[in-house]
């Protein structure tokens, strides 16, 4: 299995031309200003992130070239950064980018079962995107929420204290575009002691 971000080729299937949206371009300027003049290359990671958000969660060739142009870097230098970090996706992803934690604490608390659930509900294996383009499923290493394990990250939000039931509910709600609560699904606040 390869994480979508770990594929060393630029996907060129879409011929879309990436242009900064006005809102994002003003953000780009703010980020670049954080660094000394002439060192704008330091801003490459936050700016790639902005580009990825604007481009529906992945970076196509045009987006990477736009970033390199914005920062006056060479393409290959930006590409090195993009391909190094698994948070950057080089292939189109679904609307909900599910990152399921499989490191020891989550695994001890049943992340394997969650994996079965997610495969069943979304119909995709690890590293795949569902046919309706609603889900992309990848596994990740520890995301640092072990106290509320098992957990998954969907887009920018953590969903914690999962079990087969509540995780299935979460996924079904996502599938039907319903609102869901972020964070702990058992109803506790943060990592406060569980009552029982």
């Amino acid at each position: 299995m390869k994480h979508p971000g770990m594929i060393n080729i630029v996907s060129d299937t879409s011929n879309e031309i990436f242009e900064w949206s006005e809102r994002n371009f003003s953000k780009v300027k703010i980020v670049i200003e954080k660094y000394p003049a002439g060192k704008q290359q330091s801003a490459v990671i936050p700016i790639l992130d902005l580009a990825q958000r604007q481009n529906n969660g992945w970076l196509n060739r045009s987006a990477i070239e736009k970033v390199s142009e914005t920062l006056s870097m060479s393409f290959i230098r930006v590409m090195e950064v993009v391909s190094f970090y698994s948070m950057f996706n080089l292939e189109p992803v679904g609307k909900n980018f599910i990152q399921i934690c499989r490191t020891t604490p989550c695994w001890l608390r049943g992340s394997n079962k969650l994996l079965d659930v997610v495969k069943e509900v979304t119909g995709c294996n690890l590293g795949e995107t569902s046919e309706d383009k609603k889900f992309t499923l990848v596994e990740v290493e520890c995301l640092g929420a072990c106290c509320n394990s098992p957990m998954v990250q969907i887009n920018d939000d953590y969903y914690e204290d999962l079990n087969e039931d509540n995780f299935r509910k979460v996924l079904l709600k996502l599938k039907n575009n319903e609102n869901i609560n972020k964070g702990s699904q058992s109803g506790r606040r943060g990592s406060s002691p569980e009552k029982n």
Partner: protein
Amino acid sequence: MPFITIDNQEIEFEDGMTVMQACELAGVEIPRFCYHDRLSIAGNCRMCLVEMDKSPKPIASCAMPATEGMKIKTNTDSIKRARKGIMEFLLINHPLDCPICDQGGECDLQDQALHYGLDRSRYEENKRAVKNKYMGPLVGTIMTRCIHCTRCVRFSTEIAGVDDLGLLGRGENAEITTYLEKAIESELSGNVIDLCPVGALTNKPYAFKARPWELNKTESVDIFDAMGSSIRIDTLGKKTLRVLPRLNEEINEEWISDKSRFAIDGLSKERIDIPYIKRNGKLISTEWDEVLNRITQEISKHGKENTLALSGKFTDIETLFATKYFVQSLGSNFFDCRYDNAQFIENQRSSYLFNSSIQEIDNAEVILLVGTNPRWEASVLNARIRKSYINNDCKIGLIGKKIDLTYEYSHLSDNIEHLNDLLNDRSPFSELLKNSKKSLMIIGNSAINFRDGKEVLNVCSEIAKKYNISTNNFNGFNVLQQDISKAGAIDIGFYNNDFAQNFDQKIKDHISKFNPVVFLLSCDEINHSILEGAFIVYLGHHGDVLAQLANVVLPTPAYTEKSSTYVNMEGRVLQTTRCYHPLGESKEEWKIFRSLSNNFSQKLRFNNLSELRNEISNLFPVFKEINNLPSSSKLDFGSATKIENRVLEYNIKNFYMTDVISRASITMANCSREILNKVA
């Protein structure tokens, strides 16, 4: 100076050295893959581990700065074990394909595996396989062999100045590649082949041709540009298989340009190896006696006192000298080396040399380029300018068309007229030049190959004096010659003042007036319409355009087939070495003129190469010392005339095809198609 103890031996080292450099001072060799003297430190191969006092773990000696009182051990058991461990990791994914690998026999990994490798593998999993990448017509790739030292990436970014190569992915998935697998767009790309410690990046045209131990290695001098880079020519029988750079700090460090390295396949294509005579508009092969007799007749018929000789890009001193004295013995004074119309000032050696020496570029603070594209005229020199730009923040100004020089520069003007502004303090660059402690001025052919060339030189000389570019003990006034033959030809006086300023017109006038015999000494870069009416004797090794127009074609050896003397752009006398005997019936030019002179009243006095060289150095003392940098002479010319408005055009239009050899080379044709014209 501080002291460091290496293997119980106390040595002195310079501040700023790394532990590895200190070990080298102590004569201890440290194995390495990623470290290279001329590249930045990466520290990722871990092969150079050594033991340091008070450190619980071994340290990477290439990245650790040496400090006073350090105690280093390089040959303990634990270090050997550590290096063995590293080697085992490197070999996990390295294929065991040495028998079919071009690097075999000269491979760093092979050599070091001999000392640190285990005799069996403990790894049962599959080896990783990596898809080969396309890097252009010169660099072949077998990426499975790559050990990720990133030397090639650092070379292309730091030295060549093209951000083409990169390391994508990480860990198990890391791969070296060019962006979207396009060709590396550098004139120095061939050097990554030498840098690669394994067989991942290989010489594409040389692939599977030979093993290093079968080759005859001849140390020689490169002739494709005027630098005279030190090279090693590897031959097998009468075939030149590859060219490698030799270390020469004063000229080329350890790089050579792609043309020097890869144009050699042109040496076995379109060669002239027997004499030809033109009968009924067709060149017919013939015997030496016959052609020489014919030439003798024609010389007498056309009037021997008007005989003309023109030199070319590769003409060596021996040829020039023999030609000059042969033509003079006929009572003619018509010979010239200004085939490109580049002007110089007679009897002023500093008006056509790179006076400051190439090495001085390293110390320059400001460099003014006038009508030159060093990237194409002398690629390795351009890498030096880039080095100075990076290391001492050297400021560069260019008068000429905007081009990508691999470093930033301020573009002063397209027009040579700008020299007037510089002289009168009105240029934006004047202030910089005034405040700089060491500045250089590099004048290219394109600035002086016009009828006002001499005035340009004079004004430049005034500018050099005004801004202290040239002082009493340093001369930063440099002319960047494009051809290795040029400086030497001027040195031995192979020119006639009658042909100055407008070469084409004046040669044309001479020929149409006298219809003389014209000797073309592998001179192919001239406008052939000017030769109309002449009896053309072409001496050369390639059947290029002018050979086809000639009435008589005489075969001569190429630069790998004769030992000849050249003067490089700095005025340094260099000698090439013969690698194998000339092809077919080719004869050295001086032998041809020596035997021709038998048919005339005045014989040339030399009978062999050493007699010829003796005679040259007796008449021209410059040639007494080889490889010596001439002491810089002062600028004894200059006048402040007004330079007329002229937009500069660079005279090299295609780097990969500048001369007979590179035009005959298929590799170079591929390069110009894929790299310059971007046709894949």
